[in-house]
């Protein structure tokens, strides 16, 4: 039992730290740390830098371009990237569809798509949720009918994150209405340039365009774009959901946000005294900090159990619930910390090239929108209530 890094792990940390310092453009890091709006190019720039280093997909098997790192090394990597303000690697390609193609895809799919995921040539989006299928995902209705060499896809997907940038979509479709609803689902890879696809923005309560509706009207998808077997899509989708475990809690990013929160609380003053010295506010910060300390150890315990060969399991649900609760608490406290300066709403000032006059401290401007935006984290990826159902059934046997 030793919570300290070994000399090898420390050397690795230094290597990652030096890489991030050299290759992460400061203007991108600044945007991330100060909660400003990122554009496609920001993500792609960072992902390409990681790709050039061979570090874009640490979770993949080595023969497909993975790093072969230990769980602790992956943890260190995430820590260093998050602390420095690196953008998240967009999960849809590397963390989601990539592992599914590796595990279940046809050799030609691996050959075509995996290198393009690694190089960020393709931006992927996730075609899961539908207007009538949220938490009850298996009730999805988007139909795919086989006609010769093609599936003809009709239906509507929603909450499709960053689909406005996407080149490809992995999509759950219904290929059969017989038997159990889970059994009629298939997993298709769809080129977003195919005729019949319309992407419409959904503006969220923070005023931002992050998610979309994707309409599919007689979209012709080549049969070879089916992953694995027809009717097995639900199995692949579940594999995908349980695959990404280490990042799900967001501990590293939350540590950065905690530091930022403390920074704000030290800057903001009342009657000449920093807000952080107000016991009522300080206690709130301390409580989140303690929860985060505990979650970090919990994540490491799960990683350690992984190393003993226990397959990914429902513990990920616990990490998701606790992790998102902490993320939400932090965004809430940051907004509270700036008091009235949370009110001015000048969204243009969060982007590039803003030359206008600011109102209040620069760091305060995006905080209300961020607070509102982060209400999503307990809803997406399986709402926290669905996660509780999973723990209840899979861990507790209720």
């Amino acid at each position, binding site marked *: *039992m030793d919570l300290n890094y*070994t000399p090898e792990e420390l050397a690795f940390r230094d290597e990652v730290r030096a890489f991030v310092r050299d290759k992460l453009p400061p203007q991108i890091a600044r945007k991330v740390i100060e909660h400003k709006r990122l554009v496609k190019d920001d993500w792609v720039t960072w992902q390409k830098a990681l790709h050039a280093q061979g570090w874009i997909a640490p979770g993949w098997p080595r023969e497909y371009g993975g790093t072969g790192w230990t769980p602790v090394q992956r943890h260190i990597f995430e820590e260093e990237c998050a602390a420095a303000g690196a953008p998240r690697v967009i999960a849809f390609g590397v963390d989601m569809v990539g592992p599914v193609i590796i595990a279940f895809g046809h050799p030609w799919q691996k050959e075509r798509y995996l290198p393009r995921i690694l190089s960020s040539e393709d931006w992927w989006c996730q075609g899961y949720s539908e207007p009538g299928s949220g938490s009850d995902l298996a009730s999805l209705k988007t139909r795919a009918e086989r006609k010769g060499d093609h599936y003809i896809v009709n239906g509507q997907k929603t909450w499709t994150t960053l689909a406005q940038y996407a080149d490809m979509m992995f999509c759950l479709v219904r290929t059969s209405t017989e038997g159990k609803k889970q059994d009629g689902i298939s997993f298709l890879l769809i080129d977003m340039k195919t005729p019949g696809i319309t992407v419409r923005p959904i503006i969220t309560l923070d005023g931002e365009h992050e998610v979309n509706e994707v309409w599919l009207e007689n979209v012709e998808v080549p049969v070879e774009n089916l992953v694995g077997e027809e009717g097995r899509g639900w199995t692949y989708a579940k594999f995908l959901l349980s695959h990404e475990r280490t990042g799900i809690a967001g501990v590293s990013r939350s540590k950065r946000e905690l530091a930022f929160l403390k920074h704000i609380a030290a800057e903001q003053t009342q009657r000449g005294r920093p807000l952080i010295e107000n016991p009522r506010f300080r206690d709130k910060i301390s409580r989140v900090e303690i929860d985060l300390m505990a979650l970090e150890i919990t994540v490491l315990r799960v990683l350690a159990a992984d190393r003993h060969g226990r397959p990914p399991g429902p513990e990920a649900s616990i990490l998701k619930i606790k992790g998102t609760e902490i993320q939400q608490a932090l965004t809430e406290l940051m907004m509270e910390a700036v008091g009235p300066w949370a009110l001015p709403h000048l969204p243009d000032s969060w982007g590039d090239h803003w030359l206008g006059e600011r109102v209040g401290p620069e760091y305060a401007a995006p905080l209300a929108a961020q607070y509102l935006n982060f209400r999503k984290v307990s809803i997406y990826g399986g709402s926290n209530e669905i996660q509780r159902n999973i723990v209840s059934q899979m861990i507790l046997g209720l």
Partner: protein
Amino acid sequence: MDFDFTEEQQLLEDSVSKFLEKNYTFEQRKSIVASRVGYSPTAWEGLANLGLLGLPVPQDRDGFGGGGIETMIVMEAFGRHLVVEPYLGTVVMAASCIATAGTFEQKQYLLPPILEGKMKFACAFTEDGGRYDLDHVATTAHMDDGQWVINGSKSVVMHGAVADLLIVSARTSGDVNDRNGISLFFVHPAEEGVSGREYPTYDGNRAAEIGFENVRISGDSLIGAADRGLPLIELIADRAIAALCAEAVGCMKVLNDTTLEYLKTRQQFGVPIGRFQALQHRMVEMVMQYEQAKSMALLAAVKVDDADPVERRKAVSAAKELIGRASRYISQQAIQLHGGMGMTDELNVGHYVKRLTSIDTLFGDADHHLDRFAQAESAQPLNVTAFERPRAKWRRI
């Protein structure tokens, strides 16, 4: 980074668990609690035979040479069995205090009888009006004719009446709340001028009010340096807190297991009540809080051996705070989910709830430690060179 127990630690866990399963069942504990002395001399002897009374004592003094992790392993098992032995005061606090800061003679004369189970200790730090502040010391000690003379009183001294020797904090200089000027002494309870009153606490343990009126003790009864006792008091209190955190984790484990079992067997409306989502989600919350508590007990166990007192204090107080919150939640839900049965004395649930509730109070509750945690970073590091730092083995086990 490594989260595995060593083979030795695994063996320790097995032997403690086996011993308690045999000698400390819920029924056996009931009669121990009801007995005249309030602990089990037989079990105490058993713990001595297992070598557990020398847990924090270095191996070159015939001890186990354990650190925070070993203490955690033992205390978690104690928590599962609601052990009421004077282990915390005698072993986790006194033995480690002597091993850390005792003089050659003190180690020579006091450690062997502790290891053999012939000498029990209680630590008398708490005073009326001081609440949880270890630096609130109104009890005084002054030198007179080569002897120390103690005056004052200590409150809610756990296991105070069964102790063969007391460790008492007393002020040798300064004002009641000064951080400097506190010293630690060994005081024999049979010494003239020591008075006491024993009473039960609601969790099945015993405590005592102890008074000192012109108690004269020998000049070599001082532990560590005079006037500079607070860092040592804080160190052994932190060890006690880390141990209590582990004990709480053991209690919470039993409460969660018992409650889960009840949800699966208790039938209402024709189905097991665990089929109801309102109860399922609460049970999941209990499990999550348990996992977070376990993580913090682990962190405290590792950091309690840290040479840097600020690092140590932050981790220990964070653990006590989170575990205080988790204990309260799990306790209340365990009763609630058991319904009327949760209210009975017959079921073990209430007994675990009572112990978790008292653990929160011992050495400072969640609010106290939230405050201490927040202040830890800004606090001036104390001069801790008055005693040696733990051996390297304690840090990496």
